């Protein structure tokens, strides 16, 4: 469970942690009274970065500079401002517990992941076959993107059938019936038309009429967004069980002749599903629960990938692969950092990293840059291709298979990080 700082000492520790991030590695932390600016410790750029970092770490957005008080320049003044804000009514103090001040709520009921499942397209093709289909020189996809095989939906499969298989696995693991569902949160970047994907899933599963379907966008970040929404829904009375499901069948849209192979050849077909519950039995192996959610949109990279369907059914694609790969690496790393700041959990303590994988080469670079141990990252894109929203979902299923049965002190948190065009970034920490 996330516990945002409440006491002055805890607030002070958070501020000192942020200073450690901002200051050069070999710098000593300043005394509480030392002025960061006049002492030359921080310039105005680093000062603002520090204040933003503290706001995020404390879960107090727009804390500084809103009420006319000058932005703090010492640890002591920052502690005072934050302490006052936490105890002020505007941050929802109720019985001494700050509520709005802690968006990552202290969720003792929380949102437990009790079931999961992934379903991949039934056909396996080698990247050489994909090269040939798209008219690329043999070996292009393997060399440039690290893709060895791709999963493709068979003729009988589509988003609904793949997602249904994944959902059945998730329900079975959670020992719940479809009749227990309160919500179906569904996300897909390839499903088009009406009834929508969520409604079709609802019908396909024969969920009860009282179960509410909700379509969630976000492209490859869809699963992470669904987790954030599920957590919010489960905090309300009357909601106990949420099914999160994603499915993407790229092979029917990103086809040769419509998109270049350097883009279309990266994608595979697949689905995943998760059962998220409010309650969990008290055992030595409690299920993972949603601890922290972070996210945002870095519009600075928005032109690196733009895709839309034209009226004549052709596809307008603006794809700058190198720029997009750089942006993905930057933002996936940023997401991990944000999760660390918000949760207080370090990536070194993690059991696994369920990452979106635009392609395998990007993952190789990210592993080096973010210092992620290879054995803690389930690789999906190398053997399946980029599965859209289901990429990090499939990786999470693999991680949960490995670690969910372990007792609590033998496992660490799972970091989930994903990006999508926009560029949208989302992260979830399970603990």
């Amino acid at each position, binding site marked *: 469970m996330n516990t945002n700082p409440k006491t002055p000492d805890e607030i002070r520790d958070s501020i000192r942690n*942020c200073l450690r*991030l*901002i200051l*050069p590695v070999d710098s000593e932390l300043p005394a509480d009274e030392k002025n960061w*600016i006049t002492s030359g410790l921080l*310039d*105005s*750029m680093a*000062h*603002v*970065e*520090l*204040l*933003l*970092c503290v706001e*995020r770490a404390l879960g107090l957005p*727009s804390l*500084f*500079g*809103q*009420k*006319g*008080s*000058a*932005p703090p*320049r010492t640890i002591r003044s920052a502690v005072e401002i934050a302490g006052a804000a936490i105890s002020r009514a505007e941050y929802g103090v109720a019985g001494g517990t700050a509520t709005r001040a802690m968006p990552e709520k202290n969720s003792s009921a929380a949102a437990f992941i009790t079931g999961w499942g992934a379903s991949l397209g039934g056909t396996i093709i080698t990247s050489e076959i994909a090269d040939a289909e798209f008219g690329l020189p043999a070996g292009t996809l393997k060399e440039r993107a690290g893709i060895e095989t791709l999963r493709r939906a068979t003729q009988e499969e589509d988003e609904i059938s793949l997602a249904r298989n994944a959902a059945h696995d998730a329900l079975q693991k959670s020992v719940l019936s479809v009749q227990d569902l309160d919500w179906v949160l569904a996300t897909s970047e390839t499903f088009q038309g009406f009834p929508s994907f969520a409604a079709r899933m609802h019908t396909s599963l024969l969920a009860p009429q009282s179960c509410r379907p909700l379509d969630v966008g976000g492209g490859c970040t869809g699963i992470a967004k669904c987790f954030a929404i599920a957590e919010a829904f489960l905090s309300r009375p009357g909601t106990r069980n949420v099914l999160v499901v994603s499915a993407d069948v790229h092979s029917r849209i990103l086809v040769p002749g419509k998109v270049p192979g350097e883009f279309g050849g990266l994608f595979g077909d697949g689905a995943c599903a998760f059962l998220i519950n409010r309650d969990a039995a008290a055992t030595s192996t409690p299920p993972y629960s949603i601890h922290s959610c972070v996210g945002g949109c*870095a*519009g*600075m*990279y*928005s*032109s690196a990938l733009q895709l839309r369907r034209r009226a004549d059914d052709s596809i307008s694609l603006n794809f*700058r692969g190198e*720029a997009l790969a*750089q*942006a993905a690496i*930057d*933002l996936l790393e*940023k997401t991990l*950092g*944000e999760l660390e*700041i918000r949760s207080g959990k370090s990536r070194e303590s993690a059991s696994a990293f369920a990452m979106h994988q635009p392609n395998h080469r990007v993952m190789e670079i990210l592993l080096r840059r973010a210092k992620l141990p290879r054995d803690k990252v389930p690789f999906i894109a190398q053997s399946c291709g980029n599965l859209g929203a289901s990429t990090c979902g499939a990786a999470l299923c693999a991680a949960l298979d490995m670690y969910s049965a372990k007792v609590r002190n033998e496992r660490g948190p799972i970091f989930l990080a994903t990006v999508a065009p926009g560029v949208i970034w989302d992260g979830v920490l399970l603990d």
Partner: protein
Amino acid sequence: MTELLISEITRMRGGFCVIGIKKENEGFRSVRPVPLHTFRWPQFPYSRGDRVDFSLVKFPSSRPHFEDCSASSHRKLGTVPEGGLVDSLKQAEVADILEDLFGCHLHPSPTGGDSVFAIPDAAKRSISGCGIRSVQFILRFYPDSIRVSLTLNSGEVLPSLPVVDRDWCEFVDSLATQKANRKQLPRRLDTFFGTFIEQQILLSPIRFARIGLTRPTREGHCWLMLDSLFPLPRPEWRDAFS
């Protein structure tokens, strides 16, 4: 002597950084005249749009501040109106997309903030212009810092750029001195910029920004900053604030 059209006068610790544009065959090129032994001018007696003759000597500058030149003497030749300056800037270093601003990938702040930096060895220059679609001032860190977010014509966003443009900084300072109740100042400034100033900028036919890079930090980051925002603030806009 080399004639420069002064395009940037920016606040730098204890002084000003100056850039001018020099006429070349097919347009203009940015040149950063710097006094001997330092990068900043303690005083700079000219304004943007002034045509100034400099005695310039090129010296081996460090990446990516290739525009640096040592300046030893200077005199004013005349003045170009703001519209003419912007027209000339559009013939200097310009970019339609972020990646082309400095010829390299831009990175988000490693600490999770909104600021953006370039790697010194990757950047091909340290100043570039761009057309802008929208602008938003962030004044909650005032007086320590003024920030601005821009949307380029491409739709890409440059978030939270520190504003170092002397004219805009002085304009905000002058508004601040107008307001007796300092406790409400950041909110009042926010409202004024959000409702009035940003509208004036959007309506202007000479909407244009010049983005600069800081000198490399110890960590090897050249942060992006807003060197110039056109149109420049008008004195009469202060009346709307009061």
